[in-house]
Structure formats: structure tokens, C-alpha cells
């Protein structure tokens, strides 16, 4: 019972601190042109290279580990 009251109180406090929004808000502008621009931008962009960089960094890290601790090779092979 007490735990239930505690939960009600914290929920009430949260609702007082962050009041619920109006029922049915709508955007201030037409977002369709922005969606089209986003689609165009993404389709003309070069393929993202962040994974390439990540792959290189991972490979470099592995090389450092292997060169500095050769005994780690069996463990790495086990996990890879």
C-alpha cells in the first residue's frame, strides 16, 4: 500500500515537472519539402565511409595487439 502511494507520488511529481503536451500538436510548417530534400541529399551522397574508418581502426588495433602480445593470437582466433 505504502509502495503504491510512493509510486503515485513520484508519478505525480514527474507530471507536475513535465506537464503533458496538448492533445494533438501539429508542425509549424509543411515538412514534405524537407523530406524530399533529405531523400535527394541522401541519394546523391557518396557511400558513407565511417564504417571504412572504423574497420581500419579495428584492423590497426588488432595489429598492435598481435605485434605487442603474440600470445594473444590463439585467443583472438578463438573469438574471431
Amino acid at each position, binding site marked *: 500500500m505504502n509502495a503504491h502511494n*510512493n509510486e503515485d507520488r513520484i508519478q505525480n511529481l*514527474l507530471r507536475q515537472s*513535465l506537464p*503533458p503536451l496538448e492533445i*494533438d500538436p501539429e508542425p509549424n510548417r509543411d*515538412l514534405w519539402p524537407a523530406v524530399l530534400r533529405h531523400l535527394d541529399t541522401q541519394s546523391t551522397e557518396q557511400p558513407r565511409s565511417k564504417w571504412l574508418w572504423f574497420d581500419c581502426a579495428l584492423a590497426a588495433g588488432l595489429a598492435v595487439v598481435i605485434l605487442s602480445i603474440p600470445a594473444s593470437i590463439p585467443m583472438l582466433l578463438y573469438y574471431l
Partner: protein
Amino acid sequence: MSNGSSSVLVGESNPLDRFRQGDLDAFESLFRLHQRHVYGWILRIVRNPATAEDLTVETFWRIYQAHARFQTNRAFEPWARRIATRAALDWLRTRRPESELTEEAMASQNTPSTDPGITAEIRIKTAQAFARLPPRLRVAAILAVVEQQPHKEVAEALGISVTAAKLRVFRALRLLRKDLERQGITP
């Protein structure tokens, strides 16, 4: 852009089928039909109109990218809500704790509390403590507790079970309580 891709499409089938095949006109119809709901859902999570607009654009971009994975025998709106929730969560994860809710909390202090025991200072501290919670707990709590959305809907939007959604809300409230107690506030 619109004319180019719609030519690929089958004429008389329903918009969901055509959307699934990548028809931009069908996508626009779905956008017009659901943008308000998606925007409102995102706004409930991020609580900032400009950010909610940007994330609505991002959500519909993601929706279009995923058009081939859409199952036409299922409803569009819950699927869109799930993608919107993920976009909002991704955004929350890139933010520093306390940076997004504090402004709103400050603004809300002008509206008087219905409970005289809850001062403006307590409300600010509560909002700040809430902003420090992990985003996935925060989203569950804000939707279920603040916006009072049904747990089933919250769970679907988060892609988890109803039990898991309830657990997230429970954990969010427990962490919030602990944080407030550390500051000498006993809810």
C-alpha cells in the same frame, strides 16, 4: 522526383502496396496522412517543436528507406511510430544529459503547480534528474507516465514486450526517486 519514381508503379493497387514498391506519390499520401501523428509522438518524447520537426523528417526518410521491409498486412501507423521512437531515442543518446529538458522545465515553472507542496525548485530539480536518466528508461517513462499512453502502445513503439516496458517505467521512477533523495528531496 515524384514523377520519375511513380512511373515504375502499378496503377490501381492500394497506397500501402504502392509504397512498398517505392512509389513516391503513395509515400507522399502516407506522409500527409500520418505526419501529424508522427510529429506529435516525437514531440512527446523530445519536447521541443523544432527538434520534433527535424526528427519527423528523419523518421519519414527512414520510413522511405525501409519501404521494402514494410508488411502490407500490418498497420502503417504503429510501424511509423516505432521508427519515430527509434529516431527520437537516437537523438536523445547524442545529447548531453540535462541539456534538452531543462529549458522546458524552466518554462513550465510559470504554470502553477496543482499541488501546493511541490515548489518550482522541486519541479526544476525533478526535470533535471529525469534528464539524467538513461534515454531508453526516460522514453518509456515520459510516454507511459507523463503522456499516459497505454503500456501496449509504448511497448510496441519501443519494440519490446509490455512487461519490459513496465519494467523500464518502474526502473526510471526508482532511479528518479534515488536521485531526488540524494538531493534531499523526498517525493
